């Protein structure tokens, strides 16, 4: 960790961040237009709904970045906790009949309890086997949700029981309020991830990511460190899920699926693994691209193209998948990582990207199935 005390510019990121939040907060009151990107001027609900969705996914991406970037854990089941937040709120309101804020609390706690249980089991292994186990758990969650239609609405999804929700959050007129709510959620999630990263826990998590042996030698438990980070990240994902549920007035089984986790993975990698602002950029960019590419796909320009061009171009996910592959192969740092290395190179420093560090950690443990057993030491 560089000692930032001497740098005079160290308040700049905080000032910029605050200014940005301020700008976003007043956006619904302004009449700005970005034709081609935003569907309507900024004070109208169409754009506000889109931006809210962007922020929900930015928050989810931030929580995933905490897991992958800071914690070094590649999970394919993160959506489980997002879905737990969404479904948790829905179920609490619908079946327990509680008002909104207790419902939110229940959803958050529920998500974290599930994370504690699944995380404890998953962390028996690490690296790629860990990823597979998290995938299996998410799949189980998905099946659970689909099968228990009484509770979860099954394939149709669960809609928000608006009777329990305060009026100022219901209806298209109040999209502004939902927008501000999701902005608040994003700020909270960001501050929590910032706090974790800069705290002793974050320090330990980074050390564990690089070399578990070192942490063990210090008498600390890498398992416990990782589990705490895992549960915090899951809690943040649940919070994002709650916001999603409120925003969309309902949720579907897809929100617990591995599909969604992979979508979030794409967001984080595109934005840049290990960078908080990268996660936000990735989440926003992906959501915008997904929406706009879908609109573009239906346009006349595309419809006129020969089949072999038209078919791929009308599938936004295909384009995003290809973009993802290109980024992983040629720009593994993502947007934030590439910019960061360019800046560092100008300063004369050397940086090792987060993905390369994960590779190194994977190699250093000898066999990928290191888990709780002692990893092979690096021999001289």
């Amino acid at each position, binding site marked *: 960790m560089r000692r930032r005390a001497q740098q005079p510019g160290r308040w700049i990121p905080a000032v910029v961040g605050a200014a940005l939040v301020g700008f976003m907060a007043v956006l619904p009151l302004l009449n700005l237009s970005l034709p081609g990107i935003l569907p309507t001027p900024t004070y109208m609900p169409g754009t506000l709904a889109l931006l809210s969705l962007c922020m929900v996914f930015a928050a989810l991406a931030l929580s995933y970045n905490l897991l992958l970037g800071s914690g070094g854990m590649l999970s394919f089941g993160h959506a489980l906790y997002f879905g737990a937040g969404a479904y948790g709120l829905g179920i609490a309101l619908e079946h327990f009949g509680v008002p909104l804020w207790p419902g939110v609390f229940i959803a958050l706690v529920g998500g974290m309890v599930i994370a504690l249980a699944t995380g404890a089991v998953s962390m028996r292994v690490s690296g790629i086997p860990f990823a597979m186990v998290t995938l299996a758990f998410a799949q189980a969650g998905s099946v659970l949700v689909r099968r228990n239609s009484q509770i979860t609405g099954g394939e149709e999804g669960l809609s928000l029981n608006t009777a329990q929700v305060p009026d100022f959050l219901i209806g298209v007129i109040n999209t502004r309020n939902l927008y501000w709510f999701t902005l608040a959620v994003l700020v909270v999630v960001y501050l929590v991830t910032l706090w974790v990263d800069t705290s002793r826990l974050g320090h330990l998590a980074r050390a564990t990511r*690089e*070399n578990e042996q070192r942490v063990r030698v210090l008498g600390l438990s890498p398992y416990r460190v990782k589990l705490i980070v895992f549960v915090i990240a899951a809690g943040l994902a649940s919070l994002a899920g709650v916001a999603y549920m409120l925003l969309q007035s309902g949720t579907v089984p897809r929100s617990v699926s591995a599909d969604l986790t992979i979508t979030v993975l794409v967001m984080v990698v595109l934005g840049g693994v290990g960078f908080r602002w990268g996660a936000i950029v990735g989440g926003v960019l992906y959501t915008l691209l997904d929406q706009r590419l879908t609109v573009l796909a239906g346009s006349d320009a595309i419809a006129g193209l020969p089949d072999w061009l038209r078919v791929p171009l009308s599938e936004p996910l295909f384009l995003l998948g290809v973009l993802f592959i290109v980024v992983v192969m040629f720009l593994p740092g993502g947007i934030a990582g590439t910019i960061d290395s360019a800046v560092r190179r100008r300063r004369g420093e050397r940086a*090792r990207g987060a993905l390369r*560090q994960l590779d*190194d*950690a994977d*190699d*250093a443990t000898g066999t990928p199935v290191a888990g709780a057993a002692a990893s092979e030491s*690096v*021999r*001289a």
Partner: protein
Amino acid sequence: MSGEPILTVRHLRCTIAGQQVVEDVSFDVPATGITAVLGRNGVGKTSTLRGVLGLISRRGEVTLAGERIDGLPTHRIVRRGVGYVPEDREVFSKLTVAENLALAERQRSPRREFVAELFPDLVARRDQPAGTLSGGQQQMVSVARALLNDNRLLLVDEPTKGLAPKIVTEVADALQEASKTVPILLVEQNLEVVRRLADDAVVIAGGRVAHVGKADDILDDDDLTRRLLGVHVEHEDAYDALSERSESK
């Protein structure tokens, strides 16, 4: 010692998972005889060998018989005539002895008879899975693998580690026989073996070369051995053991 060295290493730097394990190592390996690599535990001896072979990330200049090999992938370096006997033997436990050896054969007519004479025990056990062999037998497989081909250089890493004294002698015999036709770079902690086999020696400390010279000279120098190798060599015993052995040969 005459002629060009078979291997020259200049400013070799190696890293494992981002950690520097070899700082700056430079030395030559003569084209005949056995050169020992000495040093305390953890000082970078194994990493030096692995760096020469390209098994770990490395920078610097490495030249084999006049040609640069530091930019080549491991299998190409090996195909140029480098045999490798790794620390901890690394035989394939689920493959039979015969399969382990067959895997190592690179040329049309590998030196099977030569190897069969040196290691008759292995011939008898050809269909046994290598994982069921004793440590000493596995070491034989490991050495045999390196001797099957016409190599220009052998890199041998602690071949006597963890073996009973009788087996140590057998391994040393095999290496001595091999050294008649191919130069060997030998990492070895057992100083008796070093004294018996090695002509020259390179001492590594702190990831760098601390001393180069004749093996006997270095081992006779108490101060040096204590400082760089962390051991106290008992001269009397070593000489007795040697003379016993040379008499029984």
